[in-house]
């Protein structure tokens, strides 16, 4: 198989394992490209991509833009801190206006769950979800799995714990779907207030004790505490959170084995992980960032090849 089963990347839940492996194999090639002296290929010279960010983003937006430019696509950027509805224009109208300027592909970040699914049902362009509310962030999960594969050889059979604010996290949800699809075992760990009540129905185990979770796992993916998404306080203070769910070097050294530490960024140093952990050899946080460009190049390339058909 050399093409994706989908025309959009709306979420990991819409992909099968063959899709994921195809993206990884394609990313292997692009990772080699971006480490060359000339980091660019002419593959998408005839493709125009709009990056629509209805929510703040730094690294995801940069990563997408870089991926698009490395593929020689034409790129336009649209950022709005306010939602389109609040400005009086609907999302469909906003996007159709941009598409009428002959844009082929839309990369969208949006604060509402399902916004990319909604858009894909109503506009005529290939859509890549760059994060929609607490729903999915598929390219993040793909680059996370890709980084595990790079570090540990394979994702299948590995034990991965996702630590922190699972309730508000699209990264957690996409990672759960991606890891389960590839045959990994998944655990979530955090205070009960930040774990969805029915998360076990997604086939993951729940552990509220961090030490037990870390002793179980091969990889710990430490999520950022998303204060900006919380309407109420789910724990009394950052200090108390760190006491229970912060990873420090002392804790890591006390485990039976050496585990791999991941973080989707941006890190709250001293909250979910200490600086010495973030900067240690066990952490692959910067590898994740580099792999993000290769993964996004792969996704864009594979979806663009479907447009051209």
């Amino acid at each position: 198989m050399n093409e994706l089963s989908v025309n959009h990347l709306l979420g990991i839940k819409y992909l099968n394992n063959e899709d994921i492996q195809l993206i990884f194999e394609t990313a292997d090639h692009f990772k080699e490209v971006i480490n060359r002296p000339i980091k660019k290929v002419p593959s998408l010279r005839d493709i125009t991509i709009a990056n629509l960010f209805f929510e703040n983003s730094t690294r995801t937006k940069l990563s997408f833009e870089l991926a698009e430019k490395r593929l020689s696509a034409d790129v336009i950027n649209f950022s709005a801190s306010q939602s389109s509805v609040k400005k009086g224009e609907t999302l469909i109208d906003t996007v159709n206006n941009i598409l009428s300027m002959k844009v082929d592909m839309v990369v969208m970040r949006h604060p509402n769950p399902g916004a990319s699914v909604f858009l894909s049902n109503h506009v005529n362009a290939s859509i890549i979800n760059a994060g929609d509310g607490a729903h999915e962030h598929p390219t993040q999960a793909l680059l996370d799995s890709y980084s595990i594969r790079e570090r540990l050889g394979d994702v299948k059979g590995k034990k991965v714990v996702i630590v922190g604010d699972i309730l508000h996290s699209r990264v957690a949800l996409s990672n759960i779907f991606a890891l389960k699809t590839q045959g990994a075992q998944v655990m979530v760990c955090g205070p009960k207030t930040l774990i969805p009540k029915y998360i076990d129905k997604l086939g993951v185990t729940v552990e509220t004790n961090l030490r037990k979770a870390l002793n179980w796992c091969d990889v710990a993916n430490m999520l950022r505490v998303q204060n900006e998404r919380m309407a109420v306080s789910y724990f009394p203070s950052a200090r108390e959170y760190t006491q229970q769910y912060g990873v420090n070097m002392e804790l890591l050294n006390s485990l039976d084995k050496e585990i791999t530490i991941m973080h989707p960024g941006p890190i709250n140093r001293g909250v979910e992980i200490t600086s010495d952990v973030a900067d240690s050899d066990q952490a692959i946080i910067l590898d994740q960032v580099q792999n993000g460009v290769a993964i996004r190049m792969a996704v864009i390339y594979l979806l663009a090849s479907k447009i051209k058909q």
Partner: protein
Amino acid sequence: MNVLLKSATIIDSKSDFHNQTVDILIEKGVISKISKRINNTNDYREIHLDNLHVSQGWFDSSVSFGEPGFEERETISNGLKTAALSGFTAVAMNANTNPVLDSYADISFVISKGQNNAVSLYPIGALTNGSKGENLAELFDMKNAGAVAFYDYQKPIKDPNLMKIALQYADNFGGLICSFPQESKITGLGVVNENYTSTSLGLKGNPNLAEELQIVRDLFLLEYTGGKLHIPTISTAKSVSLIREAKKKKLDVSCSVAIHNLFFSDSVLEGFDTRYKVTPPLRTQEDIDALIEGLKDGTIDMVTSDHNPIDIEHKKVEFDYAEYGTIGLESAFGALNTVLSTKKAIDILTKGKNRFGIASKPIALGVKAELTLFNPKTTYTFTKAQIHSTSKNAIFNNVELKGSVYGIIANKKVVLK
């Protein structure tokens, strides 16, 4: 108005003519003769319809028509026409207009707009001024104007003392107090049922707990205050058992369920389709089973379409931004007749009036004709072709249903499709 209905099967378990296929003569709006065969000696209008069934006119205890203030969604005139073509001879209209119906004048306005119609329109007054949940509206005055109950439509009364006072105060004049079953702090920003679907879609969950906690509160209050409480649109299995227990204790409580909550589980939300965005949210199959059981054993007193027209501009948007609600009058019978037997569906559609102080009589000679004409056997896919409402936000769009409506005879008028 004089009409002769030919070969009509009467479905009315309280009538002596139940299950009989007869001719029905209606003269000057009154049933004057029921017999195996009636000769049309006076050359009245004859109505022959395929597999014609006739029942007492149906009642819907919760419809929204948008007038005044949201006429782009629905007007009273077209809303009543929709009700008639959907088989309803009486509807209770919610106060969720702009301005909210919270005064004698507002209630009088709605009543005047509904006059001279085949369908009888019964306004529900707001429980609090502007439905803001702060101060009681002039309930007694509104009752005198014709309000049949008091309800801040789909807005929970957050203050327990306000609910206590409302129940006590309305008991002075037999007023029916309605309380939307939702504890808003527990609901938080929840938009769909909290379950597997909400978790996998990243949509904020509205747990069963929010509904049940409010019902427990209101039942405790009712036990203390006395009075008449109606809980509109329950949706969870535990809500059914809570109300079942309360009725065993002889509390004066009634409740309804929205027909779509009997039909769809939250799994339909997978595609983020906003037509499924309703409140209370679609729950699970276990809840549906318990709700149907509650209907069968009489714990749930009535069903409602909870007809709520929303214009496309407020539905064709991102899920979180879309408004709650679906139209439901047109699909009400077909949906109910699909999940229940025809006899049970008709029993339930003709119940509820008494609770709202509206008289009803079984089909008999000398009784004012207030009849629904239908065919319980037809099967079809519900589409926009069946929609008469101004707004088209139908949750039942593209769903297979069984049973269609011909129309009604009521208030000396005949309305047929």
